[in-house]
């Protein structure tokens, strides 16, 4: 039988603006995941931490930081950084090591403590760093890029500010049912329109905040789990960390210019769609198989782009899907049942892991009031800076 990797436990520290050490959130989430798995920490053979760049040296070596905080056991470790995709990269490393037969059970942890306000580049003058230059030369904040995508939807596909608000209202309603979400409030359309414009056409309530939080998963080989009587654990059927293909012609954070398509024609499938396509291929599944998805709604408008990248509908038709209620709880493919980034705010290294936690709970039927009835297959979609992106597919 093909070796399979299953998620035997998922755990979180609730998202918020707690202002404490990120290690505390990571340890809390790890303990919660281990408790759900019903195994001891001393059983863990491999620890992977998703790094944070805003908490000093312990954040750069998160695997070791969490392993030390949980108590040294001699386990092998790794620390991964891939911007917003760090958590998926950590899952990928652990899963691959299990698939290779180099270990049987691994703990994956990501946690962050974030400053208030816009995410800004790290300190110091670095003229060769595009992330530094886009702030310095242009004042091109993250919401600037989110707004570009939103504006294109309006000018090309007829999206309206009401559509973007409707995404926020939909996700807030589901986030209100999630005890781990930072904002457990069912915001209304009026709330959205009363919030200040940040980057036209996007308003404050349509842009994800930065949060504190932690998420963890216990992954194991199916065989190891079943030997311990753990049956029916959800399978991590695919992890895609595809990079763009030259020429990448969509304006993406943090770059000031795209590649040129003067000599080489752009690939048929754009970067984000390709990240997901590769996940579908790896899992042997397609968009028709999805029962739900967790997507990176850095802005409410961006969720609509993801519908198309997930191939839930043709390009330009995401608004139709939204308006038809297809992507809300009770619809054909609910998107962001956790509440998404809109309800969580982004705790960068934890976020991609949190997306997978939601899928694990959903396909196990343990998602409580936000349960998608009969959920068997879910996909995550995530994008980070510098050509990082990820998609994880979880199956019952």
């Amino acid at each position, binding site marked *: 039988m093909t070796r399979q990797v299953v998620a035997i436990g998922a755990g979180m520290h609730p998202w918020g603006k707690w202002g404490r050490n990120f290690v505390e959130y990571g340890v809390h989430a790890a303990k919660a995941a281990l408790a759900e798995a019903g195994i001891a920490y001393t059983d863990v053979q491999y620890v992977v931490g998703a790094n944070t760049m805003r908490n000093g040296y312990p954040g750069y070596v998160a695997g070791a930081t969490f392993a030390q905080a949980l108590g040294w056991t001699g386990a092998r470790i790794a620390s991964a950084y891939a911007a917003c995709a760090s958590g998926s990269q950590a899952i990928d490393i652990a899963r691959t090591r299990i698939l290779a037969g180099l270990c049987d059970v691994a703990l994956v942890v990501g946690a962050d403590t974030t400053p208030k306000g816009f995410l800004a580049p790290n300190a110091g003058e670095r003229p060769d760093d595009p992330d530094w230059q886009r702030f310095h030369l242009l004042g091109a904040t993250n919401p600037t890029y989110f707004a*570009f995508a939103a504006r294109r939807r309006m000018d090309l596909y007829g999206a309206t500010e009401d559509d973007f608000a409707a995404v926020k209202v939909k996700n807030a309603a589901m986030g209100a049912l999630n005890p781990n979400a930072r904002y457990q409030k069912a915001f209304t359309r009026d709330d959205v329109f009363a919030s200040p414009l940040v980057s036209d056409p996007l308003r404050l309530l349509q842009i994800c905040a930065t949060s504190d939080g932690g998420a963890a998963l216990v992954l194991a080989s199916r065989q190891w789990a079943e030997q311990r009587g753990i049956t029916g654990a959800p399978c991590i059927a695919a992890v895609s960390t595809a990079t763009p293909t030259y020429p990448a012609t969509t304006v993406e954070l943090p770059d000031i210019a795209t590649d040129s398509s003067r000599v080489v024609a752009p690939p048929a499938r754009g970067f984000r769609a390709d990240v997901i396509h590769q996940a579908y291929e790896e899992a042997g599944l397609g968009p028709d198989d999805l029962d739900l998805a967790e997507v990176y709604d850095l802005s409410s408008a961006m969720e609509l782009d993801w519908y198309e990248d997930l191939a839930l509908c043709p390009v330009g038709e995401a608004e139709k899907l939204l308006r038809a209620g297809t992507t809300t709880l009770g619809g054909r493919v609910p998107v962001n049942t956790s509440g998404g980034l809109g309800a969580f705010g982004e705790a960068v290294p934890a976020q991609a892991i949190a997306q997978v936690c939601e899928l694990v709970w959903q396909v196990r039927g343990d998602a409580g009031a936000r349960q998608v009835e009969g959920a068997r297959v879910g996909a995550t979609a995530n994008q980070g800076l510098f050509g990082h992106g990820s998609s994880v597919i979880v199956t019952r």
Partner: protein
Amino acid sequence: MAVQVRPAIDGWFVAEDGVVALLGAQCTTCTTVAFPATKVIVCPNPACDGVEFRRLEMGRRGRVWSYTTNHYAAPPPYVSPDPFVPYSVLAVELPDVDLTVLGQLADGASIDDIRVGSEVELTTKALYTDGDGVARLVWAWRPVADASVVPRAMTAEVSP
């Protein structure tokens, strides 16, 4: 006393005699282009082994790919005017080199005149005044006054 001006960054654009151009690097092997020229180490086209580049003054006109107006000050290293005034950032497709590049909207231009697809041209704007009292310039975009005019040949190659 004449106001001293200097680019806010070296090697990304030229502004001489009223002519403003962004500086790309063109691979001498496959002719693809990359911006900014300063980032290029080897040819970014993975199918090309090129390691030599000529400096290319890229098109002065382009079409708006997208745009926004920011209503909050960006954090440092952006030097935000005090008091803050909303500022607009555009992403512009350059048809002669087939790439898209960002830039602020020029002073005096109105974002109300901009749509996806609008034709714009390069100019400069003062980004901030540095510690020596020197105005630091950055490239900027403004609507083309008469968009019906067929743009002249947009690429000028200069010796490396």
